[in-house]
């Protein structure tokens, strides 16, 4: 007897999934951050070297240098640069931008920062190198308002400068950009000064970092540069996605021809798998690069494997003379262990790659691990649920629907 209820539930689930995919895919795909190789931009790995002999590169210097780079890029007006520090002495800068002034920006970033203190006439009266190493810090006044404390290495020099410019403004410049313009209120004798103003905790910290980076200016050496023109990136994306469609179409046809009805269900869950991977990519804020897309298309192949393993098992059980329902049950049970073992070992491999790999390999590992987890949910449990619904509706009781010929069924 055909149970329409179950089949109806199946249709509803598929229709819901279809609607979800059809209406939101463009939106989800549009939100995914594309790597430099797909939208144009550049990535530079710098090695940080102290400008003055005797200084060491430490986390502080690295962080303040990274901060300085960010400031400079923001001056250049580029949105959202990604700046990562990598121990012991590297800074990675990624800028996804179609603007043509890439080369100007690189020049701007690579220059050592020069911090200067100037009098009202614009004459340089003190330099970043006059600051004591790590001499700038955030302090508070009596009313708990944030301020910046600054220590100079030569207190005599500070005393002379403050005496000569008493009650005048002293401008602090990073390169040619004015950072702050405090007034000298008294002659400072001990070498420690305070810069007060309308600071928040955050802006005070920023200024302190800036002063520290000025006190220990670093030289940036380009170690690795990748720059991609915008139209080259778009071309690569377009071609690869097109190739992906062809690959997906081949899989789609193959599954229907070989496995018939379950093959159709595999195709539905594969579409779901692809969709949910995109959603998760978006949640993770992962950046999709060209090898990432290729790996992603490959993961579809591995996801297909989960279905093939199950269906081969079901076919085997059918050939041994079992009914569709019991073939489904035992095929499903026996293939589950295999699939889980295979997926867990791959997960172990991705975990290791993540902990021991460098940035691009880490990104690759994260995407691969994500697809494996999503695949277990959609291609193992999702696929089984749908197949169960269809089988229990009693509409497909002939082995034909599972790609098994009557003549192949053994007697038992």
């Amino acid at each position, binding site marked *: 007897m055909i149970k329409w209820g179950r089949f109806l539930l199946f249709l509803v689930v598929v229709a819901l999934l279809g609607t979800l995919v059809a209406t939101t895919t463009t939106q989800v795909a549009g939100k995914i951050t594309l790597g430099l190789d797909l939208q144009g931009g550049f990535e530079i*790995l710098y090695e940080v070297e102290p400008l003055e002999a005797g200084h060491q590169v430490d986390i502080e210097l690295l962080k303040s240098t990274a901060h300085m780079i960010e400031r400079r890029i923001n001056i250049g007006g580029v949105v959202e640069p990604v700046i990562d520090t990598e121990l012991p002495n590297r800074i990675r800068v990624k800028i996804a931008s179609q603007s043509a002034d*890439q*080369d100007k920006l*690189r*020049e701007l970033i690579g220059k050592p920062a020069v911090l200067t203190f100037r009098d009202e006439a614009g004459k340089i009266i003190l330099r970043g190198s006059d600051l004591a190493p790590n001499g700038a810090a955030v302090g508070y006044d009596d009313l708990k308002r944030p301020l910046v404390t600054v220590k100079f290495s030569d207190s005599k020099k500070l005393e002379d400068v403050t005496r000569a410019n008493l009650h005048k403004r002293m401008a602090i410049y990073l390169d040619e950009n004015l950072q702050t313009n405090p007034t000298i209120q008294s002659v400072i004798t001990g070498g420690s000064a305070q810069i007060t103003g309308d600071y928040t905790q955050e802006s005070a910290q920023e200024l302190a970092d800036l002063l520290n980076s000025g006190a220990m200016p670093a030289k940036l050496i*380009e*170690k*690795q*540069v*990748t*720059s991609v*023109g*915008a139209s*080259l990136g778009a*071309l690569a*994306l377009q071609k*690869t996605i*097109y*190739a*992906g469609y*062809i*690959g*997906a179409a*081949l*899989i789609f046809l*193959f*599954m229907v021809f070989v496995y018939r009805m379950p093959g159709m269900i595999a195709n539905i869950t594969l579409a779901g798998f692809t969709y949910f991977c995109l959603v998760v990519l978006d949640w993770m804020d992962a950046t999709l690069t*060209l*090898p990432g897309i*290729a790996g992603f298309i*490959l993961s*579809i*192949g*591995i996801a*297909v*494997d989960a279905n*093939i*393993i199950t269906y*081969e098992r079901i076919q*085997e059980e059918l050939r*041994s003379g079992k009914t569709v329902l019991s073939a489904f049950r035992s095929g499903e049970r*026996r293939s589950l262990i*295999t699939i889980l*073992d*295979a997926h867990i*070992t*791959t997960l*172990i*491999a*991705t*975990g*290791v*790659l993540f902990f*021991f*790999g*460098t940035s691009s*390999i880490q990104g*690759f590992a994260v995407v*691969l691990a994500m697809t494996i987890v999503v695949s277990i949910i959609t291609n193992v449990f999702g696929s089984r649920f749908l197949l169960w619904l269809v089988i229990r509706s009693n509409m497909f009781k002939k082995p034909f629907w599972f790609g098994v010929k009557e003549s192949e069924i*053994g007697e038992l």
Partner: protein
Amino acid sequence: MSFNQHDTVIRFDIVKNRRKFFIGSSAIIILGLLFILFQGLHLGVDFKAGTRLDVYIGKDFKPAEIEAIIKEKIPNVAFSPVTTYGTYQAFTRFDQTVSSDTMMVVEQALKAKYGDQVNKQVSTVDPSIAREMVKKAAIAVAIASLGIVIYIAIRFQWLFGVATVAGLLHDVFIPIAIFSVLGLEVDITFIAALLTILGYSINDKIVIFDRIRENLRTMKSKSVEDLEHLVNVSLWQTMRRSIYTVATVFFTVLAIAVLGSESIRNFSLALLFGLVSGTYSSIFIAAQIWVNLKERNMLKKKA
């Protein structure tokens, strides 16, 4: 399931012929090693100091024209002949790192000649970074192998783990050897491809070992003959799945290799070689190594 049915599954005695596969694979590996030793690998800028320039010209052009422009703008740096690829694209490689300012000058000259649609992609890598990445990737593969052996030893048996890792090393080596033979460029994406192969290849071996493990529970395997028969049956029971799976992945990757972006062509080719060698080694090498190890164990126990 009856024993008769098992026999009909076997179309060719893989296990009995395993020595041939061992000899064949050893020969390929030795040949590959010789190639790598004498011919070396064609290292991309990722592994050698230098700058790679890719340009999109966007209309018909002659490589010689581009070479002339580069020679004029960068007179002192040697570069490889300009090679065209795809539709209206070309690339070349400089033996030294070239500054971005100089590249800008070249781009402007190209724009002046061919129009504003000209677009460039430049990669410069310091070799110290590349060496470090390779070292880290190698360490990662080694630790991943160890982790897999431990997992398989717990879930299956220690011998399965050893056989899996032997197969994995085979699968990672083959694409390297083929790249050496064909003189294809090895860059960072090649490392990513090798790691993908590793993941796929593990999958493949686990599926087969899983079937062997399952059959070990239901079929008797007291003698060496029983064991060989059992492995033969297991291999043939999973054969359709092995072929179908590799076929679907193979054609997807082939589509990317043929139709996809040129910049991932080598990546896709490496995957293709790895897929085939991974499927081959799962059936003809890894499973057979396990048979050898297991038989030695059985004989030892008897003695």
